[in-house]
């Protein structure tokens, strides 16, 4: 009985402490900021609006490998591969349905060429849902985004215009199978 009463008293005490603690918070500075009067600093790795970047030579980085599309948990990326006359792959179209996108960043993780990147821009509300469907033209930026030096085709063995066989990083010149040398 004493125990019970003690317990009850403790419960009441704890409620009062709670009230007091919460009350003290009224004198603390607000943690929130007055967006949009006061723009918050967004970290570079913030997962916001998706862009497609270009390599240091100014060419589209996307090689239409479809890995972002398959990594996407909400299946909101669709693209079609095509290639130029020199064998360079690029997307014929690249479409993201941002009304489905959950900004998880898996596409960026999956991208082998650093083409698709998430940016700190999070302000992408639209009045019409159809406007949330973005095509390549809407997403392609003129810069390299977060990764400045990477150039997939400079490393990959595939020959493209301006880079023949054996001219990629760490490659020997193409073998002449009729060579006199053993």
């Amino acid at each position, binding site marked *: 009985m004493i125990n019970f009463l003690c317990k009850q008293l403790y419960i009441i005490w704890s409620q009062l402490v709670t009230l007091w603690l919460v009350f003290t918070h009224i004198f603390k500075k607000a943690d929130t900021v007055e967006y949009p009067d006061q723009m918050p600093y967004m970290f570079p790795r913030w997962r916001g609006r998706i862009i497609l970047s270009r390599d240091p030579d100014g060419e589209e980085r996307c090689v239409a490998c479809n890995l972002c599309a398959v990594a996407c948990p909400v299946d909101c990326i669709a693209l079609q591969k095509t290639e130029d006359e020199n064998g360079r792959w690029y997307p014929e179209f690249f479409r993201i349905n941002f009304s489905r996108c959950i900004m998880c960043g898996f596409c960026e993780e999956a991208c082998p060429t650093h083409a698709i990147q998430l940016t700190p821009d999070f302000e992408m509300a639209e009045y019409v849902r159809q406007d949330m469907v973005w095509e390549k033209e809407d997403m392609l930026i003129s810069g390299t985004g977060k990764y400045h030096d990477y150039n997939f085709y400079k490393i990959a*063995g595939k020959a493209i215009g301006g880079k023949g066989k054996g001219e990629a990083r760490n490659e020997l010149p193409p073998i002449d199978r009729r060579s006199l040398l053993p």
Partner: protein
Amino acid sequence: MAKITVDGKVFEVDPNNNLLQELLSHKQDLPYFCWHPSMGSVGSCRQCAVIEYANDDDQRGRQVMACMTSPREGARYSMDKAHQFRAQAIESIMTSHPHDCPVCEEGGECHLQDMTVMSGHTYRRYDGKKSTHNNQNLGPFIGHEMNRCITCYRCVRYYKDYAGGTDFSVQASHNHTYFGRFQDGSLESEFSGNLAEVCPTGVFTDKVFSKVYSRKWDLQSSPSVCAACGVGCNINPGERYGTLRRVVNRFNDEVNGYFLCDKGRFGTGYVNSAQRISVNMSRSAHDARPSEITPVDAKAKLLAMKGNAIGIGSPRASLEANYALRALVGKDNFYAGVSDVEFGLLNQVIDIYQNRPVHIASIKDIEKCDAILVLGEDVTNTAARIALALRQSVKNIGKEMAARIKLPMWQDAAIRTLAMDKKSPLYILSSHATRLDDIARQVHIGSAADSARIAFAVAHVLDSSAPAVTGLSDAEMALVNSIATDLKAAKHPLVVSGTSSLEPALLNAAANIATALGNGDQRGNLALCVPEANSLGLMLLMDGSQNSLGKAMQSGARQAIVLENDLYRRAPSATVDSFLSGLQQLAVLDHLQHRTGEAANLVLASGTFAETTGTFVNYEGRAQHFYATFKPVAAIQSSAKWLCDSEFGNEPRIHILTGGAAAILPNGYKLQKLTPGADWTFAGQRAPRQHHRYSGRTVMRAHLNVHEPKQEQDEDGLMNYSMEGVPATKDATIFNSPWAPGWNSNQSLFKFQKSAGGELKQGSHGERLFDENTGAKAWYAAVVQQAAISGFAQFPIYHLFGSEELTAQSEAIQAKATGAYVALNPADVARLGLGASDGVQVQHNGAVPYLARASITPGTVGISVGLHGLNYQNMTTAGVSLNKAANWQNPKDWRASNIIVSDAGSSSAYGRGTQG
């Protein structure tokens, strides 16, 4: 059976097989590259290493390659202990592998990717320079990216040793090793497309697919059957964004096994063609302006013709579509949409299959045969997959020799070395040199009638009760005797013939030989090639009726429904013209616009094989079911659905029509076994057409409307147009794209087979409609009709690329095809006074270019069939007169370089034989 222990687990294995194959049969994940179920072992890639222990006390063991090891009874092996070796082996293989998986067509279904992960080599330590290679242009079908090569030698073993190609080899040595041609140029083999599937990585890729590339997991696919010829290979078409992207092989033990021909693989471009009929059109009179009508109106107009119209069926439409037409117009008004000659020939094929004691040879049977006679059929061009099978059957002599010295059958290199260029006997009787001549023991060039007489004589020699032939020359009798001797000596003799030579006596003679080869319970093997995917299905639906196309044209009908058919390819142009102009109402259902369609008042857009579900009956009477791969635009429907009367219900499902056809066909009940039933589900769900990794569902159509539509429904049942359901691995008939955890490439197939390389767990797809006749031997009279010839005697020449109506409309095929031409002996060329760039005026037809071929008998002319510029149906049996064409200029589509023949340059090809 032997018991072995692998890592403590006990397996029952076949000691006659190699250890790798047996472990795979037990669904163990043992990496490999160079081994292929169809090509045996050579032990070159060092990936399937295992440890073999000498006895129970042996703790160290020794490393062996599983593919080169015969399992010993009671032996102990370890896969785990060799894991590190395999990882190192693949690491060295990968040192020069280019960093280009994202831009590789193989990525995502790459055996090398799978094996690299499986072997545990996940991090590249080598940072030295990579060796590189220049690529070759291998023509319109196959792309080449030599940097990716891991020198497993599968390509050259397939292309040269398996498919008999000669223009491809392995060159140089060590890290210079190069797989390619002597010079850049189109691969000549008709089976080059399989390189893309055989290559475990991305050296050889499907160039046609690459233009519209999608990853394997993004392709919506369904089990299907090739519609390009009468062989009925099982294929697996893949669709994305509403267009057909590619075709890959679908394993069927009994039919195509692991390989397809290039026509089947690359010939489906017409499905996406800009010439597709994609709206339904109607007009009041022949010369009025057509206007687009809704599907509902179109169907109403079509069904309004019921009772007044005759129906002309199609050998390239499904059994169901033909049946629906027959049900609509009635049996008496249903006519076969094949030429009158072909009508007779096909009826004859059915008669032989039903009434002669022969064994109808499937491709699997053909590959087992050890003595073959090819009668007047250019199989490479009319039924290519059979030609590939024949190339295997001539290797059986090597297997026999190997068996004699107890060499295991999987010792590929050893058996080849043992046999050298010895081949099982193959005789070819043909009107011109064919692509199989290089493996033939003897080739006889002569008219189809000549060949028939020789063949009748062979039958008589084999069985004296068969009718005899008189008047053969000594040389011909010598040939007859050697054929008969070889066929008689063989364990599995085979006769291959077909309808393409248009000679009825040839079929009779083939039947007589096959009958004569029968001995007790064993029956002679006979394979009769038919021209189109459903030629036999259509003829079986005729149910004995003699309604040929000629009869249809004389029937005086005022209304006609033409199902998937261009009548100008079936009958002389003048006859068709007068028939069509006599019609008041002509309805044409087809995929592509053609001359018959242009004359129609009502044109209905009908779905191709890729958009419809149905059944084809192949050359051996095997009914095979195919499923629509994707749903076309609303205006396009399957012919069967267009023709469905309300008596099949308002929303008829295809199995109702299949059931209707089953009531007519012999052994029709077997059609019900083709599917697990229209309302089949597994765990309450249908099978999915899409891979479980299918991407882009919520955005594919978002540019049109962000609000996603309901998933497409397949009213025919069994399969969903979605990812929902249990992957179609539970039933062979709905087995599409093979995939197993860790096995993303087509090599995962062994997980679904009873034993690696063997039958699918669920059995083989397809039901043979003809029972084997067990009656007494009966003979066809040795009568060969020969009309009096004036001018040149003509014979048809077929082309794999171009002769078939639909595939000829595919871009990839057109790159390998040519326009129409005639082929003449050089002597005749001189006699006609033809210069190098002159044309030939063909009687009843236009002027065409010519080709001089040494193998053609002087006085005869080979006339291309189906190629643009000539109508073979216009020819008469009374011979053809040829003249030099005036003011001739070769047409643009004349590309002689695409014509690959085996007799170029040889001065005389008469009886040309290779050393046996």
